[in-house]
Every structure is written in structure tokens, then in C-alpha cells.
């Protein structure tokens, strides 16, 4: 399957292991990634907060570039925040022909046009809806047996439900559960799994931001998760990069490894933690490495 691939900014900045692990697993899933390297940042909701038309136009440009990729079935992203920010812009662009014409007028200088109705799916959605859980199960080389994984959805990929196309036929707010299960892991539920990681207010109210991250991580520790998995690199920043600071705010040791979704999939598809960039996390994913070593030893 060929997709127009939007990696976002952070997967090429502070979480390069996300982009790297996606590139490693794509061939194993028979995914051809055509990178949208001409596109700019989705604005993460912040540009829309500054100027809505600017955010809509910049994302319309990205959509138009994606629509130019020959043979691509859809656009795929690996960042929940991009998904949420782009879905919001798309909702406005697709709701009004006049507005779309107005925005396309701004893009005309570059010879680009956005045609209504692009399909833009986060890798999580694509995994379940396009590749399918059965196919995924059949590709598993090293089931995540006895690995206790806590799903961390965050906000942008689960709310608001109507905009994100979440309904009984598309329970996208349960897909991480389904993927962990399909990979052979044990799903660990905990209170904070669909709450805010705190990242959006890290510069405005650092204490509250770190308290959010620390509480969710603490909930996961109490629920005895070995690690968390998230489809959002910004959640990863607050939960992993900031974890040493979050520990101070909530006054407890956490040491909870946080994996990117492609890393968890890659583990089950037989790749090694190091190939998937796990050595670059701030919180060493010791539990995951111990688990994979034990599995390899058992097989040998």
C-alpha cells in the first residue's frame, strides 16, 4: 500500500526514533511511504490559536501536496497532534465551498489546489482499518507474551469524537487496546490513558503540566504496567523527556518507559529494541529490553 506520508516535525526533531522506527517497520507491513518533505508544520493547534485562516491554509497546502502523490491511497501521519490539528482544519475546509475557494486562492500562486475530502489517517487508524488486525496478527514473529502494556491515547486522537470519525463502527478510541492485543501483549488499563499529558501548557503552567504527566505515569506504575505506548510524539516528550522533572513534582519514583507505536509494532515483528531507537529514550526501557532478551533466550 502506497501512502502520502506526513511524519510531522517532532518525529524528525526531538523524537527521531519515531520517524526511524516507522521507516524500519514500513516494509514489513508492505507500506510504501512517500514522504511529504515539502510540507510544513501542522501548527499543532497553536497556529490556529494565533490565526485560524493561516492554519487552515498551511494545512490545505499539505493536503494538496498529498493529493499530488501518484498512486497514494491516502495520507498517513504518525503524530496524534497533527491528526487533531489537521482534522480541525479539514472540517472547516470541507464544510464550505466558498471558504475552500478562498483558501485555494491563496495557494494558487504555487499552483496548488486542495480538493475536498482527503483521507488522512494516523498510523494507528491505518494499522487497524487498512492493514487489519488479522493481517497484523499473522505478521507477528515475536508475540508480546507477558508484556504488560498501558495504552496512552492522549487527547488529539480521541476528542472530539464526531470530528475524528469515532463511532461504534470505528472505535478509534480503543484501537491501541486492539493493537496491543493483536501483537500478543497484555493491555493494562489505568485512569489517565485518555487524559492530557500536559504538554500544551508546559511553558504556561509547568507545575500543572508536569503534575498531569506524573499522575498518569504514577497510575500506570500502580496498575503494574511494564511500559506505555503512545501514538503522539508530543505526549512522548512530556511523559519521557520530562519524566525526571515530573517525578519531582509528584514526589515519587516513576521509571516508566514510554514507547512510540511503531516501536511496539516493530518489537512484535521481530526487530530489536536498539534498531527501533529505544536506546535514545530518556527513561531506559529496561523492562522491555529484559522482556525481549528473555524471549530470545527462551527461543534459543
Amino acid at each position, binding site marked *: 500500500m502506497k501512502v502520502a506520508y506526513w511524519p510531522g*516535525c517532532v518525529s524528525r526533531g526531538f523524537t527521531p526514533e519515531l520517524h526511524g522506527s516507522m521507516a524500519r517497520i514500513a516494509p514489513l507491513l508492505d507500506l510504501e511511504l512517500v514522504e511529504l518533505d515539502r510540507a510544513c508544520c501542522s501548527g499543532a493547534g497553536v497556529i490556529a490559536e494565533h*490565526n485560524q485562516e493561516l492554519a487552515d491554509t498551511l494545512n490545505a497546502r499539505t493536503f494538496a501536496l498529498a493529493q499530488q502523490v501518484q498512486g497514494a491511497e491516502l495520507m498517513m501521519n504518525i503524530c496524534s497532534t497533527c491528526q487533531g490539528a489537521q482534522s480541525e482544519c479539514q472540517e472547516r475546509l470541507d464544510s464550505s465551498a466558498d471558504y475552500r475557494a478562498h483558501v485555494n486562492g491563496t495557494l494558487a500562486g504555487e499552483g496548488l489546489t486542495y480538493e475536498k475530502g482527503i483521507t488522512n489517517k494516523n498510523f494507528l487508524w491505518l494499522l487497524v482499518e487498512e492493514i487489519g488486525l488479522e493481517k497484523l496478527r499473522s505478521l507477528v514473529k515475536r508475540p508480546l507474551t507477558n508484556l504488560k502494556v498501558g495504552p496512552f491515547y492522549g487527547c488529539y486522537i480521541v476528542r472530539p469524537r464526531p470530528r475524528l470519525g469515532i463511532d461504534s463502527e470505528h472505535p478509534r478510541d480503543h484501537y491501541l487496546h486492539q493493537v496491543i492485543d493483536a501483537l500478543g501483549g497484555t493491555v493494562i488499563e489505568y485512569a489517565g490513558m485518555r487524559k492530557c499529558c500536559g504538554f500544551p501548557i508546559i511553558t504556561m503552567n509547568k507545575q500543572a503540566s508536569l503534575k498531569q504527566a506524573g499522575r498518569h505515569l504514577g497510575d500506570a506504575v500502580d496498575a503494574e504496567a511494564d511500559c506505555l505506548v503512545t501514538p503522539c510524539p508530543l505526549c512522548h516528550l512530556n511523559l519521557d523527556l520530562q519524566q525526571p522533572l515530573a517525578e519531582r513534582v509528584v514526589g515519587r519514583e516513576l521509571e516508566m518507559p514510554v514507547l512510540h507505536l511503531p516501536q511496539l509494532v516493530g518489537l512484535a515483528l521481530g526487530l530489536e529494541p536498539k534498531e527501533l531507537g529505544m536506546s535514545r529514550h530518556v527513561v531506559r526501557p529496561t523492562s522491555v529490553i529484559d522482556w525481549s532478551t528473555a524471549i530470545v533466550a527462551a527461543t534459543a
Partner: protein
Amino acid sequence: MADTHKPPQDFTIRMRRYDPESGEAPYWEDHTVELAPHRSVLEAILQARDRFDGSIAIRCSCRQAICGSCGVRVNGEPALACHTHLDAALQGAKDGVIEVEPMGNMPVIKDLIVDMDAVHWKKVQRVTPWLINKQPVPEREYLVSHDAMVDVTQSMACIQCGACVSDCLAMEVDPGFIGPAALAKAYRFVGDPRDDQQFERLNDLAQDPQGIFDCTHCFKCVEACPKDVNPMGQIMRLRRIATNDHHIVDQNNGERHEAAFTGLIKDNGLLWEAELLPRSYGGASWFGKFHPAAGKELLSSLPSIIRALIRGKVTPMGALKPHKIAKSDLQSVQSIYREIEGRPERYELNLYVSGEDEP
């Protein structure tokens, strides 16, 4: 539409009971009632009170989703008990039992009744919830454009049920946050062309450390609201008007963060994380990082920064040099910025006013 022809059936309601005066801890209690599936969770609670235990406490009045009295959590989600059909509630129930709890973020007075005065109404009072007339007051009525009036009716649709307050994730960690309901109410006056105090209101809400920049953008209130008030959307508009139209620079880094983010995308096409934080603290130029506030922030973040450097997550080059899109693409992006930011007035599509012409 609910099917009103189905015969009554059994529904088990699991209620969270608590009486602070008893000295006992909260506990769960099950009651099975018999009602048609289209009847409401409120009717089930009232039937349980009539038939099994007269001490069950719930606040309710209109029973038609307009008085806002019966806000509760049904199966963990905020809802009006009178506006939730039993069959719909059963679909979201674990093990076939409908769970009803009091709302969150507010102290419980008894069972399903929370103290709205202590939290919600206090916060509404905080935003000066009345119109301050522009002077001179016209002899007859003020003339206001249709679009401007429809715009504020979205926040006027609020029935003060507290569902958004109950589920606000910022308030969960920072109880002093003014919160979604009160800030939606603030927009009702900021957006009203007859109000005289737009700048003063916005400056007050921007400078407050628990004001408009304390919202964590989680969309919980958008989902919780039974009346489509879109509180988070109203908060984002308060931010846009404060920063863009009034150029209010707040002490919470809200305006600087927004300017830093938007400016970095204009300069590079992609986000440069290492530069975003110092600029958010020190100001939107390369020199921002040498501002004392940025230095203080850098120091307090050292435990994370050192570990990130040791682990190779962040490389010194990665931190010092931005990643950029190709020059020709960057020029296109900058030309979009120039065209849109050069407009005499911000152009903003409001789907609540315009409706969807292509659903």
C-alpha cells in the same frame, strides 16, 4: 430517535452514595428498576428513591434538559441524567450495570449532588458576567449585526449544568483554573459588540496565571457539553483576540509561546523545539534565550536536558541547528504568511454562524 414502543424491562443502576455527615466513606449501591428503555437515567434514579430508599439525593427540576440541575457522570462520562436514555446508557455500561456518580472537580454535598456554589458559580462570578454598556447608551436599542449576535448565542446556550467543569483536565491538577464554563461566559461579553470593556476583560483573563492560558487544550469540555457551547473553542478565540487584536503580552508566556511557535514555522517551515522553549520564556527572537527568565527555565530543566544529552535523544547539533524545508517551499510558506497576516482584518470561518453548506 429513541424507540418509545418497547415494553418496560429491568435496569440495574449502580449509584455512588456518600453522606459527609455520616462519617462513613463513599460506597456503591445497586438498585434494579423497571422502566421502558427510552425512559431516562433520572427517572430510574427517582424510581429507586421512591421504591427502595428515600434518602437517595439528586438535584433535578425540569426533566427536559434545559434547567441544568441533574448533571452527573453516567458510566464515567458527564451527562444530564434526564437527557440520557436508559438503553443508550446500557450500551456504555460495564457488565450490564449503569454506573451513576456525582460530577468531578466539585465537592460532594450528598450522593449525586455537588457543591456548584463552591466551584462553578464562584468561577462564573470571577469573569464579570454582565454587560458593561458602551457610552453613550442609545435612546432606542443598540444595533448589532446578525452574525455577531448568532456568534455570542453559542456561549449563551450554556445551561450552567457544570458538565464541562466536572471533566476539565486542567482543573483536575489546578483547581484554581477559571475553567471552561466561566471562560465561555467571558466570551459571551468579549464577543458582544455592545460591551465596552473588551480590552480590560481580556487583559485580566490573560494576565491571570489561571486564566485563558491555563487551558490544556484537551477537548474534554467540548465533548462534555450537552448544548454544543464548545467552551474550548471560545477560550481559543479569547486567546486570538487578546494576542492578535489587542497585542496583550501576558506574564504567563501565552502570547510569547504563540508568537515563538508561529514565528519558528515562518522561519523554518518546521518546528525547532530547542528554540521554542527559550523563546516562549524570553521573547520571539534569537536573543530570547539569553533573557533571565529563559535562563531560569533552562536551569530548572537541567535534570531532563542532561539525561536527554547522555541518552543521545538530543544532540548538541540538533539543538543548535533547526531542520528546515527546502528554500523554494519555505518561500511559498512565507508568502502565505505575508498574504494572510497582511489582511486588514483577520478572516475567520465560524461554522456555528455560517453552518455547513456541504455537510
